[in-house]
């Protein structure tokens, strides 16, 4: 008899994800776009902030080396878009990871411990919900240098975890009455063991789904902040700020909108497919 290999929960999930063609295609596209965004600008003759006085607002394919045209100030749109993808991806992913970690731990702890601790922790969430987040961001950006994108991560992440905490707490409340939690208690598993080994893996399904929705949300939120002048500052660019600029020129130079918007739509669609695939892979019961 051959020994069956040891497969953990994550090993199984990975095997199931690999069988999902849409999710695998989406993740390949995400990886390709990310590689292009992080390494592409180095292979282009144009820096993202250099102005080419000879070619201002030229359309793509104009017989010069600006493949995707230039913007109003004569900056290469291809390089600027890649730079924008880079910034947007960083902000989207990092802010999501921050909100995920804080939200899951906060929500699971509050839901599992219950009683007064739960009450106090969730009131903190309620109060933070009630604060206008724009003020938080404005206060943070006056405390630090304007345009420092790490302050942006902090601000966006600090706002983004609230909904996640509520979702996880709700899931935890229904989970902790389950008999398998009681069984773990009866086996002598400690509070942290139950939270990390039983509660968190069981809430991961809804969390992943919500997280894939959060990444595009964070990217859009960042572009909104950029529009208010609180986000990425010129000459830096994010997808949001590029689309914003492009939208102002859309009647005369539509490519300035289409190029960054195309990248944004492709990325967001791929994240959704990947999220779908992850959900199927992480939930063995739905198979």
């Amino acid at each position, binding site marked *: 008899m051959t020994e069956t290999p040891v497969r953990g*929960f994550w090993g199984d999930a990975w095997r199931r994800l690999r069988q999902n063609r849409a999710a695998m295609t989406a993740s390949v596209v995400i990886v390709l776009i990310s590689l292009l965004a992080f390494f592409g600008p180095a292979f282009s003759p144009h820096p993202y902030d250099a102005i080419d006085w000879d070619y201002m607002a030229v359309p793509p394919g104009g017989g010069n080396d600006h493949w995707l045209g230039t913007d109003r100030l004569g900056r290469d749109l291809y390089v600027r878009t890649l730079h924008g993808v880079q910034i947007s991806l960083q902000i989207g992913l990092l802010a999501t990871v921050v909100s995920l970690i804080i939200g899951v731990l906060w929500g699971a702890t509050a839901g599992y411990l219950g009683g007064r601790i739960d009450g106090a922790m969730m009131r903190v969430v309620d109060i933070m919900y009630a604060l206008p987040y724009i003020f938080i961001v404005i206060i943070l950006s006056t405390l630090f240098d304007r345009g420092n994108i790490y302050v942006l991560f902090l601000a966006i992440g600090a706002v983004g975890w609230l909904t996640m905490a509520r979702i996880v707490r709700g899931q935890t409340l229904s989970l902790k009455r389950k008999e*398998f939690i*009681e069984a773990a208690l009866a*086996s002598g598993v400690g509070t942290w063991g139950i939270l990390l080994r*039983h509660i968190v893996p069981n809430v991961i399904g809804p969390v992943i789904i919500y997280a894939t929705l959060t990444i595009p949300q964070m990217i859009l939120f960042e572009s909104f902040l950029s529009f208010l002048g609180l986000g990425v500052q010129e000459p830096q660019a994010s997808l949001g700020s590029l689309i914003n600029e492009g939208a102002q020129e859309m009647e005369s130079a539509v490519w300035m909108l289409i190029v960054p918007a195309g990248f944004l739509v492709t990325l967001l669609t791929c994240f959704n497919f990947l999220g779908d695939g992850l959900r199927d892979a992480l939930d063995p019961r739905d198979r």
Partner: protein
Amino acid sequence: MSILLSLRGLKVAFPVGGSLFRAAKPLKAVDGVDLELSAGEALGIVGESGCGKSTLARAILQLIPPTSGQVVWLGRDISAVSVNAMRPLRKDMQIVFQDPLASLDPRMTVGEIVAEPLRVHAGELDRTQRRERVQDMLQRVGLPADAINRYPHEFSGGQCQRIGIARAMILRPQLLVCDEPVSALDVSIQAQIVNLLQDLKREFGMSILFVSHNLAVVRRLCDRVLVLYLGKPMELTSTEELYERPLHPYTRGLIAAVPLPDPDVQPSRLGSVLSGELPSPLSPPSGCVFRTRCPIAEAQCARAVPELDEVRKGHHVACVKWQSVEQG
């Protein structure tokens, strides 16, 4: 035989309906249970739904904190020890739950589930040794060898219960609490699980506390039986004595309610089956809690709470009229 576990006046109450402006009312789920369990003994706890059987089982394991009274485990009162001090003791007392699938973490493989008590209590074992122990135990409870890598939802109810039993038995506990372990299963599967428990008891010699509302199953497995009604003990005696000479009117009613597979006998017995509903445990009747449904209740039953007296050797009953039950 040495005493493994004894309960002294154990009470568990839950606060119900409290708010900021009104004090909560206590719901007495378990109301004064005294009991001694010897090593190697199988004790059945029977009663209707809502009589506090499961609460009693959980209070013994300190999964629900008792309101008052003592749980004495091997001479030590564990009803007030801290969660951390309790942890090493859990090695010797394990539980099997009613709903087989709900008691297994859907995200873990069967191997991980069964190995969990080993992770907590047998840290000296490495992965391979742990896996060997798990494999042995799975085989012992009658599961296929490849079960170790599969997930609970791939198994039937009876197999899931075997997984639950494997998890409970992997540390070779001295006490196995079974909370209605067969009531969610098909009748044919019930017999298999009861046989498995019997075999394990013979092999490992642990004590069993078997909570059930199924008298036939209890009769098969248990040495002694405790009858509970609204959290109070009604009768406590050996299984044989209980079924042959029940001395409490409630026990009589329970035994009469067991269906017999004989159409000629069955209808005539229905006359003596208990009527009425279980009173609300929030406002239990005065005196004897059973008097509202008792066929032989008298005025005196409403006045004083009957004590659980030893009326024959080893036969305890809480009824002032047990003599008339015995005669008629």
